[in-house]
């Protein structure tokens, strides 16, 4: 009763100058910022906050992970789908250090997060107290901002700042470390949302000279190509990108994190970039005359050897983060802007006509890739199922409309290559950090973000075991997540490198795996294993039709490699098909 009354009055109660504990102020701050869902794991130093949460169960739904790393990945996926900061709570010491992988992942992949860690009493700071770790120091290189709160009076303002920083500009994770005494002290509660920070300019002022210079170059292009990154999804510029591509008749290639920013069935879509991307866009990176990079950062997995990267091309680079301009690749026209903002302006002044010959080169490359790789993998004649067959089937049966959360390895690259994403923002994967163990907890966060979506995680037998305990979250909250493990009994991607670059010396990559079906059943989740090709279609259908969580293990070929591939250190145009 009391809780309900509290909820109704929360808006009015905001500025009444009521005296509240730090813990309650923290919880109210979240509500003020529009948070209704969070992830976390309790422990000594955060107990007062959890105690306050108990009174706000109606406003704030807390999902208890089984390891703090799992909580971060769930929060990351939640953030990517809702475009709201993902919120995580943990205790100090080990609880906090368990967050670091998720923070590093979110930092590299520009995911907004507000992570709150408990800390020992402020009087004990620096004394190596029980479960004291210097979280501000530890998280500094992997957060957009962090702050340690030691006084109750700081909480409201710091929380407002945390949310503002996490979600504006190039999004990123923020860590707030709060001492136990600050959680229990009381003060007058007054919350004001942050409207700006004088040393931080999240949205750059558009420079129209840059736009005109870019437009002029784009309009003069004969063989242009668009590289679409996650910036398109982050700024919600999918429509603008489509209009831009159509107006200028420019083929679009996506980075791994840019996948689903452009429909795969669009005639101008030419595939994925990078080490395991498609042949055409990689080869043509070194053939095009104007490269238009939007919201991407020329990661080394995209560029290969930078000294042989698009040397013939003039490059336009649209990015909201000035430190990305000329970082890895020297560009001709850097445009400092949010992708949507820049594309909206460009769309007023760009044009182009059909480029049949240029588009044909992509088609020819695709044909080659199809004959040498795709056909062999999706219609494999080998005894064991190929990963590509599974993803191909999944793509078809979900009509490319599922939210696909992938782990890291061969199955991830295969998913990226073969799943035909139809809708924006439907892929969640760990790109920059390549964190094994990301996929399944991410699917949990994605399902919570979009309860009606078909959410499927695809993992390898290695990565699945890194965060396998999160199955308990699927069980506890009855989430209808579909988890697929492509079991090749190897750390497949590493095995592939050993095969290709280490003279087939398979050092510690083979795994004697547990009975996954039994384990998953132990969690009370419906589970199935298939190893025969004839059973695959039905098994996937059964999984999708099942009205609840479902686990599917597909026993796949052990010795298959993901192709084509740009060998480490090679140029994009040296991509090998076999």
């Amino acid at each position, binding site marked *: 009763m009391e809780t309900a009354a509290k909820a109704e009055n929360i808006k009015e109660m905001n500025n009444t100058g009521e005296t509240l504990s730090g813990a309650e102020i923290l919880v109210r701050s979240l509500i003020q910022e529009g948070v209704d869902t969070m992830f976390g794991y309790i422990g000594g130093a955060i107990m007062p906050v959890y105690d306050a949460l108990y009174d706000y169960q109606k406003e704030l739904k807390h999902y208890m992970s089984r390891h703090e790393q799992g909580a971060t990945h769930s929060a990351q996926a939640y953030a990517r789908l809702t475009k709201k900061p993902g919120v995580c709570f943990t205790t100090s010491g080990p609880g906090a250090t368990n967050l670091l992988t998720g923070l590093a992942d979110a930092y590299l992949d520009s995911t907004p997060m507000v992570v709150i860690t408990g800390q020992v009493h402020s009087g004990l700071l620096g004394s190596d107290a029980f479960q004291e770790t210097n979280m501000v120091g530890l998280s*500094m290189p992997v957060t957009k901002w962090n702050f340690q709160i030691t006084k109750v009076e700081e909480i409201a303002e710091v929380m407002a700042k945390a949310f503002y920083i996490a979600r504006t500009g190039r999004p990123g994770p923020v860590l707030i470390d709060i001492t136990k005494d600050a959680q229990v002290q009381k003060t007058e509660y007054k919350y004001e949302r942050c409207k700006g920070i004088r040393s931080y300019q999240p949205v750059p002022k558009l420079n129209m000279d840059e736009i005109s210079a870019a437009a002029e170059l784009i309009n003069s292009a004969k063989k242009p190509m668009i590289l679409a990154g996650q910036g398109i999804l982050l700024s919600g510029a999918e429509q603008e990108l489509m209009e831009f591509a159509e107006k200028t008749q420019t083929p679009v290639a996506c980075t791994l994190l840019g996948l689903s920013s452009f429909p795969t069935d669009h005639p101008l879509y030419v595939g994925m970039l990078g080490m395991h991307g498609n042949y055409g866009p990689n080869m043509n990176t070194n053939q095009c005359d104007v490269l238009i990079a939007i919201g991407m950062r020329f990661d080394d997995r995209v560029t290969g050897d930078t000294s042989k990267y698009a040397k013939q091309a003039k490059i336009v680079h649209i990015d909201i983060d000035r430190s990305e301009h000329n970082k890895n690749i020297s560009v001709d026209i850097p445009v400092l802007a949010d992708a949507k903002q820049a594309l909206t302006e460009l769309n007023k002044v760009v044009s182009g006509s059909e480029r049949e010959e240029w588009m044909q080169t992509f088609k020819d490359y695709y044909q080659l890739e199809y004959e040498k790789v795709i056909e062999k993998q999706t219609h494999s004649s080998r005894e064991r199922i190929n990963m590509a067959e599974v993803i191909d089937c999944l793509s078809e049966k979900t009509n490319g409309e599922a939210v696909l959360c992938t782990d890291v390895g061969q199955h991830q690259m295969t998913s990226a290559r073969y799943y035909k994403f139809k809708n924006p923002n439907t892929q969640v994967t760990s790109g920059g950090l390549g964190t094994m163990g990301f996929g399944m907890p991410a699917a949990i966060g994605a399902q919570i973000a979009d309860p009606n979506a078909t959410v499927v995680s695809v993992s390898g037998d290695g990565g699945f075991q890194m965060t396998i305990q999160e199955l308990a979250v699927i069980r506890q909250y009855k989430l209808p997540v579909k988890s697929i493990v492509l079991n090749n009994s190897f750390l497949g991607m590493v095995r592939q490198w050993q095969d290709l670059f280490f003279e087939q010396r398979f050092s510690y990559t083979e795994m004697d795996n547990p009975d996954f079906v039994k384990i998953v059943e132990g969690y009370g989740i419906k589970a199935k294993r298939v190893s025969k090709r004839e059973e695959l279609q039905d098994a996937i259908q059964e999984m999708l039709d099942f009205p609840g969580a479902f686990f599917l293990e597909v026993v796949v070929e052990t010795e298959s490699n993901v192709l084509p591939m740009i060998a480490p250190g090679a140029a994009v145009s040296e991509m090998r098909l076999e």
Partner: protein
Amino acid sequence: MKEYTITVFSENNIGLLNEVTIVFSRRKINIESLTVSESEVKGVSRYTIVVFSDEKKIENVVRQLEKIIGVFKALYFEAEEIVHQEVALFKIANSPKLNGNLEALIRRQNAKILTVNPDFLVIERVGYKAENQELFNELEQYGVLQFARSGRVAVSCQKKEFTSYLKELSH
């Protein structure tokens, strides 16, 4: 490799120095000297950082410094684009054999005596690092008990001053 002087303007917050140095250490750039103190704007710290590196790297470093929340502006300069000095203090044991010789040296070197007491005296010299080093070399014969020098402080020759950057930021 060339010498660059980097000037950073930031809020005066706990932890910012750490964030600033991380940008250098993660690229394995050694900091030759570092000076932090309040600038012409109250509450705004000015860092003067001297490093040896190449321009491309430094350009990236400066942008990454500006990305830190709390940093207003970061700029880099080559030697001829700045006016710079260091302060050096020398503590020398007081003894009769100093008489006469020292005064001439101090005058010639443009240094000055800050403190004299029965046990020691303290000499101050402001100048380039090499000049202060030279004085140290000359003083060594008298026994230098301590030699402390500041990092570089520098002002740039460029027309645009920090206050105008600050104005742009607040718009």
